[in-house]
């Protein structure tokens, strides 16, 4: 349950999610996944950008190995976050996975166009959700060699 990632340390995951229940379910699912994870959570797009840019109260924030992004949030939503990350040279290399309830075609296409690496529709039950999260982390933390952080 606590295998270290390909980098030899727990993976840093940033979860951008406004719903506390969904955040808790993601935390549990990540806890049941193969790799050890340090989970950081912010509740909207503005906070997410502050975290990534180490602004405000986030001066000590690590660079995340993976960003899990909800699409529908108040203030700055997931589409805007994708756009902002894509427009920032310092952040563009970060892998973003969209995690949402929306299976609308339009949302999927917009997200991919804006540069997300995967798009996961949250399954209606926890078992399938945990399986999806495990698959996701297995892929990102063992198989994929992440872009080097300079």
């Amino acid at each position, binding site marked *: 349950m606590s295998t270290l990632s390909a980098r030899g340390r727990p993976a840093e995951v940033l979860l951008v999610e406004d719903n506390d229940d969904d955040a808790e*379910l993601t935390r549990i699912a990540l806890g049941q996944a193969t790799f050890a994870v340090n989970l950081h959570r912010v509740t909207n797009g503005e906070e997410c950008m502050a975290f990534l840019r180490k602004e405000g109260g986030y001066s000590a924030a690590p660079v995340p190995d993976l960003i899990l992004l909800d699409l529908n949030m108040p203030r700055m939503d997931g589409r805007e976050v994708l756009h902002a990350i894509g427009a920032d040279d310092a952040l563009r290399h970060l892998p973003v996975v969209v995690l949402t*309830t929306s299976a609308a075609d339009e949302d999927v296409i917009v997200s991919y166009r804006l540069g997300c690496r995967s798009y996961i529709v949250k399954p*209606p039950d*926890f078992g399938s959700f945990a399986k999806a999260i495990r698959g996701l982390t297995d892929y990102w933390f063992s198989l994929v060699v992440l872009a080097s952080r300079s």
Partner: protein
Amino acid sequence: MNRAGVDPSDGAGARVRSYKNLVAASVLVPMLLFAVVAWEGYKDAMREAEQEVGRVADVLQGHALNVFETHQLVAQRVSDRILGMSWPDIERSGDIRAYLGKIRDEYQQIKGIWLADASGVVRNASEVLPPSPLSVADRDYFQALQVADAGTMIGHIVPGRVLKALNFNVARRRETQAGTFDGVVIVTAFPGYFTDFWNRIGPTGDIAAALARKDGAILARAPEMDRNVLRLPTDSPLREAIRRAERGRYRAVSTLDNKERLYAYRRVGEYDAYVGYGITVHHALSPWRSHLVRSGSAFAIASAALLLLSLGAQERARQEQQAIRQWQETAGKLREEVARRADAEADLRRSEERFHATVESAPSAIVMMDAGGKIVVSNAATEKLFDYSHDELLGQQIEVLMPDRFREEHRRHRFAYVEAPSARTMGAGRALYGRRKDGSELRIEVNVSPVETREGLFVLAAIADVTERTRQTEALRKANDALERSNIELQRFAYLASHDLQTPMRTVASFVELLGSTYGDKLDAQARDWIQRTIRATHHLQAMVRDVLEYSRVDSQARPFEPVELRQVYDHALLLLEAAIREAAGEVSCGELPLVMGDRAQLVQLMVNLMGNALKYRSADPPRIRVSAERKDTEWQVAVSDNGIGIPLRYHERIFEIFERLHDERDRPGTGIGLAVCRRVVHRHGGRIWVESEPGKGSTFHFTIPEGTVNAS
């Protein structure tokens, strides 16, 4: 006649003069009466026409609001679709072009969709753009949206550069993340969509309706607009009325055809658009005119007869005058006195007869009561309306014609009325009811007017039966309202169901599942069973919400009808059900199937649901399903029959209701949506659906689908 000096026949001369007065009165009195009747009728006809114009204006306003809301919804959808895309991306994207084209095809009220950047250059559109850049920088909506987010802007009408017709545009602002102006999304509307609707509901050939902005720019007009007049003049009555209030009525002479019309106008929701509707005064007054001709001829005949009588009397009096010239002055005076009395009585009798004849022949119900409320006169129309005989009504209190619950109140009103009598319409603004002899009720309208006579005050009441009119108006208005609302409500509901309900349900399902998997070993069997039940119920609930969404989509995602080969629909359904058929070792066949007009995707859904049910509710034998069609009059009747478990007769209707289930959830899982969706699809196609079945003998589901062209709903 010698007027100089003392004439012994002076009394007879006075009598001749009084006959002259009578001759004048026999013409003037009926004319005056006729004028009064005509004037009252005129006022009624105008009031009726004003209400009618107002009702039609309400319908036009509802329709226009629906259209503009659709435009706004589409502009928002398109804005969301291109959110975050750069203009070069938008310009290159074939997907976007296809997307815009698809939306344009979906909505009849939309002629084109255009995406213009911050400099006004159109970068992509549902239409094929000309090789040279097309700019909307000179358009009023563009200039307004450039300055600020003014919401949904309606542009003035212009000859389109690509679409080559008079159109107008509905536009919304697109912004960068920083909130600066980044172009506009334009949806092209066309006036014909409005005028078609108006011509459908208005009187043929004589409709006057217009859709205009507050600044007078005309957006649509019937009869068809003049390309050179795209704006109402500053002093046009409609513009003046709009400046005063957002809705109202006025009367004006059209500069187009010099006809005087009654107009009503309404603002279209919060949009800068006003819809006005008018009917000619000539048209409004036509029932009044024909009534006038009828009563006019009656008056004329009465008047002519009276005139002849008077002239005859005058002639006789003149002869008499010759004879009595010789008489003594005293005798003449005496004679004069006697004659005058006789004349007065005859006059009175004649006027009374005239009054009765007029009342009796009137087409509407008229009763007259004395100051104490006793009926003294009633006509045939009254007796017919309330189903009484003449004798039964005379002498009764007027309250006999009302339901019990209104009688006491009416008595009080009547006492008050006698104190201050005036002509008025009873029960201003309230529904009035009458009561027939058998106790049944009817909606009425009553106009009362006081009649002062030497014998005291009488009250004349004219009663009109408005039951049918009230019911029809009400039904029409309700149906119309419901129709207009349903589209937008369905879309909102679908959104709610798909997003807002699913999130909390997912939370409940997930945490209960976690409770079971994490603490299951610390709980006893009872607790674990309860957790399992909760999980099952939650999953069922999730499935139901998904199904409601699907059910609502039958209307919200509807496509226009096209010719569809039912055989292809059957093949498609077979493909989708392949696994289920193989698993059940089923045998499926079909006869010759017709070409119908319909929505292909929905017909496939219908076929999958019916054939899927046949597989699901199979008996112990391998399922055998047969699809066939036969023509019945002007429609096709399609049958899907199986050898399944069958359905008891008492459920034959209920199975088509949403969430109505026959079987135990554990036995045959499902939410009970399939047949409800089937029924909705069939109804949308203008057909019927029913089942013939007996337990143990299989089921045959029939549905009809009209042949030929069917209008999409």
